[in-house]
């Protein structure tokens, strides 16, 4: 079933132990555009994001009810392979988290995992994949001469770009980004933001941000969350200029902090 949504949740509830963090969330994230998610601290943005690739399940005490569909497939269905879900849905974390291996191995990490399961990859192809991924995140020129150096030696901005680059070789449909710029300085933020904007169209991007200006500038649609519920979801200009809900207006105008 193709209804134009890359991600769709229906009646999604989530508990950390006894604490309910998401309430009856119905969200449709449209394919090919950038959707931003805003809301005060602790409202469940990260939680919702981490449910979409089931990485939340690493914590043993998380329980969910309801459905999440990625490209029309119910990711909680019994016959779903979690590895396939994570191939379709890449994730960028708040703090850049390159693996303690070389830049090359970082970018090719996911590619090698997924491709090696199916076929033998010729060496030339790896090099091409590596270059294309690094070019897409505008990092190629900066690192092309030190591909075999440890990724942990890069600046934070470069690390975050690298963390985005390593998702691309497996051709995901969706990129989830949890405040990808919050650990960066203003210049780094701008660079990464610009780069994310360039990925628009090739990927569906769902990005959490605390930065109103960033949400407004760099997203097509905007979701406002409060206390584990989705309060408002619409075109970004609409949400910012004519919010339907008074709580949205309060938040956007800075009355929640």
């Amino acid at each position: 079933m193709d209804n134009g949504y890359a991600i769709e949740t229906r009646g999604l509830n989530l508990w950390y132990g006894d604490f309910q963090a998401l309430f009856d969330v119905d969200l449709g994230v449209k394919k090919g555009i950038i959707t931003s998610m805003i809301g005060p601290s602790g409202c469940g943005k990260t939680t919702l994001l981490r449910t979409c690739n089931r990485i939340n399940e690493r914590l043993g005490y998380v329980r969910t009810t309801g459905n999440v569909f990625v490209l029309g497939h119910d990711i909680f269905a019994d016959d779903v392979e979690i590895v396939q879900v994570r191939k379709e849905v890449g994730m960028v974390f708040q703090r850049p988290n390159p693996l303690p291996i070389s830049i090359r191995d970082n970018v090719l990490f996911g590619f090698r995992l997924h491709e090696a399961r199916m076929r033998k990859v010729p060496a030339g192809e790896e090099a091409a994949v590596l270059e294309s991924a690094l070019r897409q995140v505008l990092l190629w020129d900066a690192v092309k001469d030190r591909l075999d150096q440890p990724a942990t030696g890069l600046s934070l901005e470069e690390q975050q770009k690298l963390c985005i680059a390593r998702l691309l070789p497996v051709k995901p449909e969706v990129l989830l980004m949890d405040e990808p710029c919050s650990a960066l300085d203003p210049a780094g933020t701008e660079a990464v933001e610009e780069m994310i904007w360039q990925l628009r169209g090739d990927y569906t991007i769902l990005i959490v941000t605390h930065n109103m200006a960033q949400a407004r500038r760099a997203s097509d649609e905007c979701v406002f969350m409060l206390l584990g519920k989705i309060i408002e979801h619409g075109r970004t200009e609409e949400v910012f200029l004519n919010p339907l809900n008074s709580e949205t207006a309060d938040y956007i105008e800075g009355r929640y902090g």
Partner: protein
Amino acid sequence: MSHPRDRTGVMDRRDLAWYADRCAQVLIFAGGISAIVFIIGIFVFVTREGLGFVFGPLDLGQFFSSIEWRPTSDNPGYGALALMVGTLSVTGLAMLFSVPLSLGAALYIGEFAKGKTREALKILVEMLAAIPSVVWGFVGMSIMNPLIIQVFDVPVGLSALNAGIILGLMAAPIMTTIAEDALKAVPDSYREAAEALGATRWEVILKVVIPASKNGLVAAVLLGVGRGFGETMAVLMATGHSINIPTSPFDGVRALTATIASELGDTATGSPHYGSLFTLGIFLFVVTFLINLTADLVVKGIRKK
């Protein structure tokens, strides 16, 4: 200085705290220094007792190449080769058995076990480390010995194999604990990153966790080896204590440590026999020191560059 405020209670309290602070400083310093003093003291003692013999009657070539260990004979021989091979073979067998066991246990405890199981296992491993070595020797003599005779259909069960297994079990707790520490030191964000990229649990362990904790794991193994070299009582009881270059794991052997322990009581201070045992001691000291030093350097990652 006799500033009037010096006599106030506030100032007195500060003086007291200051003295306490000073005392604590001195005590801690003394503690730290005494550790070094003891180590140097032991080293000086062992070498002083042994060196006279090393540079005197001992033929170093014979020491390292002959298997004739006859210190009490009329025609004495001080060849320690069989003893070295004995120690090596027992330690080697122990590691063959213990390294996979310990690393497996560490992986299970560190990466798979959760909550109560995990805590219980850690406590069990620590309890295992607390079993006195003479008890292990006892296990070797009275349980492993008949078991080996029965299972492998060999005439004696006190052998390099027996001691190797016992020593492996003895070295396992420290190796498990240190390996588990090394795994624990791998930031969880690495695992999360790899899982989010679609790695399975095993791929995360093989491609991320083990490479990232490699130094710690190597150090764990080295400390296990060090433990094996230095172990005495259990080895004395389980090897059969026969001077012999083993050709199979079922042969009896004799270890350096066990030789010192069993013979030193019968020697006259200053005699050649006494000196020769101290020579074995120096040798052991140097080898274990080197092993521990390597382990230390590996932990600090100096070997990387």
